[in-house]
């Protein structure tokens, strides 16, 4: 392990990789700040650039973009009450009121320190948990992996909002169905209808760009929202001081500590992610706050800002645990990262820890470096970067669309992919209007190939019998958890539906 860490340090601190972290954080902050473009879009936009790099540098750049995008999302949430990412919604609750009181600089500093602390605690916990889990998961077989993939698919549904459970399951299934397009492992063409452009299946980058970047930009056009901030909102002198007093630091420190740990563990859960972590931390701190402090929540509370910011960064770090140890993405963002890794020829999972220690450790160490860069370089640059928010929407939208199209074209150099992307983007807009979540679709799509491979292998080993589902203890345990994860919210949804039809007269 020590050798691995040293190799990772050497790789992470090489000049090219330090440059990658810096460029990634900077570009991520830029993109994440734009309302409508979150980490998924930011990463998807950067992937074509990373193809010319070695896997470690590519992944380091992507990790930097991820952190930067989350930080950028918080910046727009604080400055103009337009969270660039869903994980920053809770940040806006107290961040924007602070900015309105002329304390935007302080709010940004609290967000940056909270993010730094969350990322630091997350990186330390990652350092402890990942090797341990990677060792445990080395004993996993195809059957267990199949069960884990199923768990990954169903967990997304479990953590989706009220009334969204069945929709999330349907979207996961749709993603799994789309993943079957193309040549199967035995060389048989499925759902290609004789069209050679479908033989390799649908590209994950195309799907992620169409469903996130393109659809988001088009939805903003449809709603006529997300206009640029006025220049006066963003003037440097209006940001105020970025310094925190020792009393203020003492006030937020316990909240930051608690939220770091909570965020990390919520982030590990597949499907939970930064958004749920930030809301949970916000709720936890509000409930734990004494009377007078509790009333400040929603009105510019320092704790109310620090808690979700810390938790969402810690959760982003936590979401790397299932990706790096099991090869299972826990969120749409890590799903896109998994797709990127696979395209570099790197298979994440327990073997990554053994086979590619340089990639494994350098990514973990780079996360920490990324946090430092965000604090030391991005924070002072925020007044200048935030000028981007004042670029008029009528110029920004076509530019976003153009970069999305180029992102896909530069991978395949096939214009058919562009037409396919537009078609999928249009369908994604319809799906968004109907309020069906798109993240499970992407997760199902990415997991689809691995799920089928592992099921095929497990059935071959078990002579075509599904008995492995209950006869292998690890598989059976994961299957029980999967079933509970799936059934509890479905039953809850059905019960809610019944309650809506027969309301309790005493509750009226």
């Amino acid at each position: 392990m020590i050798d691995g860490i040293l190799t990772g340090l050497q790789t992470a601190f090489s000049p090219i990789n330090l440059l990658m972290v810096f460029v990634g954080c900077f570009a991520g902050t830029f993109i994440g700040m734009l309302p409508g473009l979150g980490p998924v879009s930011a990463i998807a936009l950067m992937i074509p650039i990373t193809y010319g790099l070695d896997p470690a540098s590519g992944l380091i750049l992507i990790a930097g973009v991820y952190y930067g995008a989350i930080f950028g999302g918080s910046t727009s949430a604080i400055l103009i009450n337009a969270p660039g990412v869903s994980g920053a919604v809770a940040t806006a609750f107290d961040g924007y009121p602070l900015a309105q009181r002329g304390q935007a600089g302080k709010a940004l500093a609290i967000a940056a320190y909270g993010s730094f602390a969350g990322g630091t605690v997350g990186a330390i916990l990652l350092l402890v948990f990942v090797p341990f889990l990677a060792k445990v998961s080395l004993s996993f077989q195809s059957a267990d992996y199949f069960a884990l993939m199923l768990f990954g698919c169903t967990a997304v549904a479990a953590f989706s909002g009220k009334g969204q459970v069945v929709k999330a399951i349907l979207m996961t299934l749709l993603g799994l169905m789309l993943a079957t397009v193309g040549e199967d492992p035995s060389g048989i063409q499925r759902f290609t209808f004789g069209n050679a452009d479908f033989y390799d299946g649908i590209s994950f980058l195309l799907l992620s760009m169409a469903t996130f970047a393109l659809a988001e930009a088009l939805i903003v056009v449809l709603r006529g929202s997300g206009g640029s901030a006025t220049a006066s909102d963003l003037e440097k002198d209006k940001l105020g001081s970025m310094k925190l007093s020792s009393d203020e630091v003492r006030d937020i420190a316990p909240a930051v500590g608690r939220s770091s740990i909570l965020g990390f563990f919520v982030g590990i859960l597949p499907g939970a992610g930064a958004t749920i972590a930030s809301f949970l931390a916000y709720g936890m701190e509000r409930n734990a706050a004494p009377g007078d402090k509790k009333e400040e929540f929603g009105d510019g509370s320092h704790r109310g800002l620090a808690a979700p910011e810390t938790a969402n960064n810690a959760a982003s770090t936590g979401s790397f645990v299932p990706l790096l140890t099991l090869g299972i993405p826990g969120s749409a963002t890590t799903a896109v990262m998994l797709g990127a890794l696979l395209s570099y020829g790197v298979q994440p999972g327990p073997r990554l820890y053994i086979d590619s220690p340089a990639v494994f450790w350098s990514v973990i160490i780079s996360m920490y470096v990324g946090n430092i860069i965000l604090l030391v370089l991005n924070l002072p640059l925020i007044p200048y970067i935030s000028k981007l928010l004042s670029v008029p929407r009528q110029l920004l939208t076509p530019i976003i669309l153009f970069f999305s199209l180029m992102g896909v074209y530069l991978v395949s150099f096939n214009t058919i992919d562009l037409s396919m992307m537009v078609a999928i983007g249009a369908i994604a807009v319809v799906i968004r209007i109907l309020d069906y979540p798109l993240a499970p679709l992407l997760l199902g799509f990415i997991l689809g190939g691995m799920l089928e491979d592992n099921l095929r292998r497990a059935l071959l080993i078990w002579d075509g019998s599904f008995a492995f589902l209950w006869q292998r203890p690890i598989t059976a345990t994961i299957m029980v958890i999967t079933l509970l994860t799936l059934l509890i919210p479905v039953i809850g949804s059905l019960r809610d539906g019944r309650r809506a039809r027969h309301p309790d007269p005493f509750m009226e």
Partner: protein
Amino acid sequence: MRILDNKDRVGGLLILAFAVAYLRYALVLPLDPTDPNASFTSRTLPVGLAVASIVFALVQLAMSFRGGSGGSIREAVRGYRWRPMLLLLVLMLGYSLMFQTLGFLVSSFTFLLLGFFIMGERRIILSVVVAGGLVTLLWALLTQAFGLFLDPGDLMRAIVGSAG
């Protein structure tokens, strides 16, 4: 058509239709000729997914009828600006179709210029400077720094060819 003015219901119906069509094709997928009786064939997962999708789509439909879940589509899209969104979709489609003919530089410049216009930008000089600057910068970065080949287009080839 009030019955269809429900987001959950229409979504459920669309997925049900997709799953039924998918199942129809899944059932006739070719099998591996060397091992047609294998326990796991090219049809196994697709059929399973289609059946599960049909079941859950029916659950969703039932919930939309019995539980009254799902908001009104008409309400949700009230005030939406369809025209620019549809025009941008057409523009993107046109870009993908004309890319090979016009090449990267001309098609991208035209795309951005028309995109700005659709979005309501009427300052022509600003639009030309932004579109031209961005496309030239990207072209220089990709071709000169990254060494990528960007198609100059059939039109450019014809012009250069006839000039030569």
